[in-house]
């Protein structure tokens, strides 16, 4: 049985096709989901792609949070469905309170686009189990609102419970606290990641193919479930 991985398209999403392509390269079936739909088409997992949903009006991810499909997604996520939010998708997950903290303007105020080295800190989540803990990968980062912040208690909880999924190595591109590039919820099924693994799935178009592991991870999870 092929895993069905939904990719939600909001008005202003940019990387939904790249995410779908990455899903296909991981031998799963990508299922396009429209933000205004009212059901999740019986998918096994969902990706919230990068982009500028609703033009990033008000705050990045603030309006997308109220999309009709997001209510269903929130229920499914709390029920254990694997959900990956990439870049704008991470912002949507924070605005939806499915993940703690918030993403604010880069400390430099500049849009940053570079091949970024990351360390996978938690290889037990539904989206990182294909990696080794401590493994370093190079995948693109491209954002202007990528500075992860949280209050000191939340940050301490994330650190002490191993919920920092990935950390920037060498350069912190956006000023994120503790070099945080990605986090997960308590159960490890909901992951938010600022860099873009879907842009590093083939050597022809990416700095590496080391992003593919995020998509392979969720497929492995389906097979083992």
């Amino acid at each position: 049985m092929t895993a069905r991985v939904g990719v939600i398209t909001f008005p202003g999403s940019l990387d939904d096709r790249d995410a779908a392509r990455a899903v296909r390269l991981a031998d799963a079936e990508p299922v396009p989901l429209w933000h205004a739909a009212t059901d999740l088409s019986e998918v096994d997992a969902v990706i919230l792609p990068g982009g500028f949903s609703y033009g990033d009006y008000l705050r990045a991810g603030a309006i997308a949070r109220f999309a009709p499909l997001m209510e269903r997604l929130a229920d499914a996520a709390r029920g254990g469905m694997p959900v990956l939010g990439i870049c704008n998708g991470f912002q949507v997950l924070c605005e939806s309170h499915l993940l703690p903290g918030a993403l604010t303007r880069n400390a430099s105020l500049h849009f940053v686009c570079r091949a970024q080295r990351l360390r996978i800190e938690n290889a037990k989540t539904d989206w990182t189990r294909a990696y080794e803990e401590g493994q370093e990968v190079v995948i693109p980062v491209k954002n202007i609102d990528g500075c992860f912040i949280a209050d000191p208690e939340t940050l301490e909880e994330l650190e002490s419970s191993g919920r920092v999924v990935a950390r920037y190595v060498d350069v912190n591109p956006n000023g994120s606290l503790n070099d945080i590039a990605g986090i997960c919820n308590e159960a490890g099924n909901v992951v938010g990641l600022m860099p873009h693994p879907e842009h590093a799935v083939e050597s022809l178009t990416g700095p590496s193919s080391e992003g593919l592991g995020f998509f392979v991870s969720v497929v492995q999870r389906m097979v083992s479930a």
Partner: protein
Amino acid sequence: MARFVVEVMLKPEILDSQGQAVARALPRLGFEGVTGVRQGKRFEIELEGPADEAATERVRKMAETLLANPVIETFELRAE
């Protein structure tokens, strides 16, 4: 018709990089003595009916759920 103003500001402990950039630009334009700038948002909301307690509560709810992100921002509201 009721008219409310909601002002949203980043919490004091949150880095306001945009405010800092403005603060750095001011001396370059000859405005000396600026010791700090913080940048926020102002919303003007018009509602049907009087600016009574119920209307204030509705606007407070709007601010809590959409206009401000309570993780990083605070807000103040007043009727005008």
